[in-house]
């Protein structure tokens, strides 16, 4: 087991090395002089030269790469051009918002997705199945950006039920404690006796959660369905049924557990992908997280920030996958033995 994990950890190094190299080349090979592009119409020769020196663009490419690599290895992602702040700090400031959203989106996608998948599998080829799977197909193909705007239009503007964006009613003048707003809401409920912060946090979470969770939900539903169908045809299920065990017990206790393996893979992958989906969701819902920060940094041509952001998200993605692999061997002893 430990050997397995260590092996996986060792594999992380070349993967991340590849990511860092790609991210570096992405900027280095971008057309035009980044300094010139960043300064625009008002630049004079002196300012361009100064910015080039600041970015290290005046050095040979290979030397730039060496410098970049040595900094990243020391966990120094450099400073943002736009704000002059350490990029690591910029990320740390925004990560809680993104994680909170991604976490609830994943819970939503997993629970609803699995329920729908199992239902479809049991009622195979009935209208329930067709509707669910049809819906899943629509869900997968829905652009997040568009879905987000439609949700705001319907639930916020027309029905006037939920806020259009942000994380908390701005008129509450709330100071974050942990930066996880639901958690902060609970803390303040205990401390100040008012649940209004918690309610507001949850209200603000609902729409982005649905927008961000829809695609993973659809994928999880489809995977669960096909995996369940396969398991339901196996001999031990027939045996269980013929032994007179209640149907629900057969399905949830015996079948689902074994059908779970591919579903876990999908959940892991989707959780990683959620961070990139978050770029769009966070932008539509004015959610102050990492995705939106990267989006703004791209617009501002803040190259060090974009590089740092991508390296961070990639690392996170790789780590999630590692966690899934480990979980795998917990769920399925066969993998451990191999």
């Amino acid at each position, binding site marked *: 087991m430990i050997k397995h994990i260590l092996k996986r950890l060792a594999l992380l190094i070349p993967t991340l090395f590849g990511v860092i190299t790609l991210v570096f080349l992405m900027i280095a090979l971008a*057309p*035009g*002089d*980044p*300094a*010139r*592009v960043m300064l*625009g*119409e*008002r*630049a*004079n*020769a002196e*300012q361009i030269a100064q910015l080039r020196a600041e970015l290290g663009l005046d050095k040979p490419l290979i030397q730039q790469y060496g410098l970049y690599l040595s900094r990243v290895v020391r966990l120094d992602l450099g400073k943002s051009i*736009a*704000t002059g702040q350490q990029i690591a700090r910029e990320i740390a*400031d*925004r990560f809680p918002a993104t994680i909170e959203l991604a976490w609830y989106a994943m*819970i*939503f996608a997993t*629970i*609803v997705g699995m*329920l729908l998948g199992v239902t479809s599998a049991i009622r195979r080829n009935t209208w329930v199945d067709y509707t669910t799977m049809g819906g899943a197909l629509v869900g997968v193909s829905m652009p997040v950006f568009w879905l987000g*705007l439609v949700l*705001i*239009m319907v639930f*916020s*503007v027309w029905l*006037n*039920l*939920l*806020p*259009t*964006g*942000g*994380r908390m*009613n*701005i*008129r509450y*003048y709330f*100071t*974050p404690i942990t930066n996880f707003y639901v958690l902060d809401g609970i803390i303040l409920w205990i401390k100040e006796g008012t649940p*209004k912060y918690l*309610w507001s946090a*949850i*209200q603000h979470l*609902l729409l982005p959660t649905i927008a961000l969770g829809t695609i993973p939900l659809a994928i999880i539903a489809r995977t669960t369905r096909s995996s369940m169908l396969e398991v339901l045809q196996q001999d031990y299920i027939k045996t269980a049924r013929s032994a007179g065990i209640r149907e*629900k017990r057969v399905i*949830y*206790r015996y079948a*689902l557990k074994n059908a779970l393996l591919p579903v876990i893979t999908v959940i892991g992958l989707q959780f990683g992908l959620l961070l990139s989906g978050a770029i769009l969701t966070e*932008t*539509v*819902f*004015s959610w*102050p997280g990492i995705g*939106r*920060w990267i*989006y*703004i940094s791209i617009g501002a041509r803040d190259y060090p920030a974009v590089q740092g952001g991508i390296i961070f998200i990639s690392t996170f993605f790789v780590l999630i996958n590692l966690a899934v692999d480990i979980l795998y061997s917990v769920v399925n002893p066969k993998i451990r033995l191999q």
Partner: protein
Amino acid sequence: MKKAILILCVLLLVVPAALFAGGSTEAVASGADSKMGGVLVFGRSGDSVSLDPGRETDGESFYASTAVFDTLVEFVPGETAVQPALAKSWDVSANGLEYVFHLREGVKFHDGTPFNAEAVVFSFERQFKQDHPYYNLGPWKYWGYMDMDNIVKEVVAVDDLTVKFILKKVEAPFIANLAMDFASIVSPTAVAKLGEEFKNNPVGTGAFKFVSWTKDSDIVFDRNADYWGGPVYLDRLILKVIPDATSRWLALQKGEVDLIDFPSSEDIPAMRSTKGIQLIQQAGLNVGYLALNTQKKPFDNKLVRQAMNYAIDQKEIVEGAYGEAGQVAKNPLPPNMWSYNDDIEDYGYDAAKAKELLAKAGYANGFKMELWAMPVARPYNPDARKVAEIMQAQLAKVGIQAEIVSYEWGTYLDKTDQGEHQAAMLGWTGDNGDPDNFLWVLLSEPAAIPPAGNIAFWKNREFTDLLAKAKATADQAQRDTLYRQAQVIFHEEAPWVPIAHSVVTVPAKDAVKDFVLYPTGKRVFKHVWLEK
């Protein structure tokens, strides 16, 4: 397992339902008879970088700092002329090298410390005296952008309420620079106390006191009850970040915000017909143009340049490419800038006249040319490619075959400022509201030396002399006359085909009163009130 799923389902269904009950925002009760009171929320597209205006260069940062800080002189609301602010008045020495400012007495910073000459000296010296204890809190970028190192020699406190600026050269636009945000007066006590953190906790003399800043989300300000410039009506001002333009519009419709910045131009017709929404509009302080390289054939010939002006129909271009976000230009200056010469008659669209001029210049059968279009959207030109296509069709009608050329943005700027083009589109956004900031940078002879700001490479002695004279004259009325004359020469010589100025639109609830857009791009709330 089953139980867990059941509980979660119930939670998922019940929690939102419970939430729906306690939704809407509370109304603010206040004295109904006065303009006083209320919370105003402004939905804007991006967050401030920091709240110290000396350090920053972006409009979003200035939105916030303008609320907290004042300057010695300020722009007249809605105009580019300047008026007294923290300085009651000022005198200029006969040689134009000394400006003496008489400061307003009794003004206090938000931290209670007095505003005085020492604070003014502090606010400026920190930006250029390298041995100043807080110089290292920079970089002081705008100081560099406005070339202040080559303008200001010294700032001296004459007495407690008198400050003298000693200049290195005669530079009339200098006074307009002092109305810009980077010239804000900061509390020396607060800077000394907070150091690096001052940029997150600004202390000034402005209409609003800084309360809190949640990054990427909102900045909250409270009314400064002791404001020197008359009553501030709003109890609170909140700048809320909503990056997506459609989301901003939805938030305004729902009433979560009271006014919004930068609507997408496709939404504007719908906004106009929405009840309870007003559109506040003003021309932006910019110009988009097609520069004709006067050093290259055939644009070395004035007649050809004039023909181009007749052949290109700006009205069609604005309708096709700008929509609601633009208005036709006839001068290099935007129409809301002082000294804008409205007596100049637009060339207008006249294909026959264009052909006639071309024939006179020896191009009866037209010619082939390269038409350079920028690869990026700018406020003064949202879609240069589309503009180029419309121009191409218009030019074809008079026998000119234009081939559209574009490069990646950085390369485009490099090539144009070296003069590699025949005719290239570009534009400019003004900083300080002074005509010099357009005419000198874009059309003077010194600006035609590569890397050039004058990408028509137009070298007109008479024109440049007028500008130089205006630079050296402190009297605003005289300067006004000189710039008007300069525009006449520009029109006759036609080094550009001026295309358009952007139009800035701020949609707001009808209840928002006395909000005025500033040409310089500021968003100022000190006189705004809410109808209750």
